[in-house]
């Protein structure tokens, strides 16, 4: 008897994750180690703590800060990138400074932001904003600069104004790279959201995890890690789905070019 191909296909993706989780479940079931509580306990505690008590008190404020900082960074990054695209000399002059701020690990600036904005929400939004800004800005600029010269020539012959050229030609041409920058920015933003809460806060999921560790509430810590891991993965999946939808035209045209 042969196993149907379809089942084999699905099984090839699932066997390892299932094995790993089963192994974790069995190995930790009778665990007496303080650091590794049984998986069943972690899961039941996650349900008890995060539906919906801590989700409302810790997770929602964290995601709120992330959302504001991230959206602001995307808007400003694309806007500023467009301005710098238009004024080439300004872009050249600004590049070393922007590049320095991009390679400077943003968490190093956290103390500065704490001094400037205190420990409240403003500080957290600001540090998320700053860390997300540079990848969006640099990718926007690079993407716009790489616009096909032929397209720009066509725009010229059609007598498009700068704004029209930006909206109709340059922005769409740069959008795959802008999306790449936005994806990097999202990863940075999540890290900075959590770090800002760990270093300077009394609320948020980062604070919850670190406090649990410091008070040796190990099971609580595990639930926090689990929730954060799931939220991180979900945000990433949502981003990729959204990107595919928005850039559908781009992927289709590259596919056609490749198939040619």
């Amino acid at each position, binding site marked *: 008897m042969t196993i149907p191909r379809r089942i084999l*296909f699905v099984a*090839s*993706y*699932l*066997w*390892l*994750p299932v094995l*790993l989780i089963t192994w974790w479940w069995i190995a930790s079931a009778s665990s007496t180690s303080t*650091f590794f509580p049984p998986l069943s306990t972690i899961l039941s505690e996650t349900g008890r703590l995060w539906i919906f008590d801590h989700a409302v008190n810790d997770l929602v404020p964290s995601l709120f800060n992330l959302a504001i900082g991230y959206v602001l960074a995307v808007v400003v990054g694309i806007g500023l990138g467009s301005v710098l695209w238009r004024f080439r*000399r300004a872009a*050249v*002059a*600004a*590049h*070393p*400074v922007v*590049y*320095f*701020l991009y*390679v*400077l*690990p*943003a*968490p*190093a*600036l*956290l*103390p*500065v932001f*704490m*001094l*400037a904005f205190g420990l409240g929400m403003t500080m957290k939004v600001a540090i998320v904003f700053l860390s997300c800004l540079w990848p969006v800005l640099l990718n926007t600029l*690079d993407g716009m600069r*790489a616009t096909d010269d032929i397209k720009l020539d066509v725009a010229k012959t059609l007598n498009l104004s700068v704004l029209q050229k930006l909206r109709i030609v340059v922005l769409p041409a740069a959008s795959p790279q802008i999306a790449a920058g936005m994806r990097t920015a999202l*990863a*940075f933003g*999540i*890290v900075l959201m*959590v*770090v800002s809460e*760990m*270093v300077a806060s009394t609320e948020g999921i*980062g604070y919850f*995890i*670190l406090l*649990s*560790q410091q008070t040796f509430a*190990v099971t609580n*810590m*595990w639930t*926090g*890690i689990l929730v*954060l*891991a799931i939220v*991180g*993965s979900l*945000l*990433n*999946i949502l981003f990729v789905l959204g990107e595919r939808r928005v850039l559908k035209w781009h992927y289709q045209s590259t596919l056609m070019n490749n198939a040619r």
Partner: protein
Amino acid sequence: MLRRKFGDTPLKWTGVGILLLIWLVFGAVPDQTSIPTLPATIQALFGELGDPNYWGAIGDTLQTWFVSLVIGSVVGITLGILAGLNVWMERSIAAPVEFFKTIPIIAVLPLGILVLGTGPSMRMTLVAFAVTWPLLVQTLYGVRSIDPMIRDSARSIGVGPVRTFFSVVLPSASPFIATGVRVAAAMALVITIVIELVAGGSGLGVEISNAALSGGTALPTMYALILTTGLVGMLLTGIIGAVERRLLAWHTTYRSIEVAA
């Protein structure tokens, strides 16, 4: 005239100059609690340059960065190649890899502190873990991107599997791997600094947070340390880029891949 002779360099320095000028003017405003004056910062930087602790902190950060990057690269590239050569392997690890890749490593940090303490081994384990997954995926793409024509030609002229690996698979995948290493290097530095800031121990992140905790008088020192961190970042990025260009200068598609990355 000037531009033809020197290219964009004068314009770049003008940008840096304007920023420093702004700092000089606005930093001189009294009652600054978050921004020190430029001269004080420069003085603090020179003070630090003579301090062995300063160089020790840089050394610690660089050590964590380097060891983690090497471990992460070896594991990530090896697994990536295996997954690229074997569909079964690729499918098996796809879900776990996607999951590990998107976990913010900072979430695991408290667990790391509990189990491994705050020493170098904890830092290296976490940073290496974090950089392994993007490198693995990048390597996998690289191995997958091999031109089937080249692979089939190698097979039809009777090149064995080992030689195919070294003279077809590895060279084709190398630009992707290089991009992966470049990204991983930047990531490793950020994560190293984050861990030092949150967990303590030793390194530039620890020095920055110590300076921040010592209050107003240490403000210029804190800025000097932050500037140092940025310079270290620039230096490492520069070195990795130079090595990459040197090693891969022969690769024809190199430029286009660099743009795409």
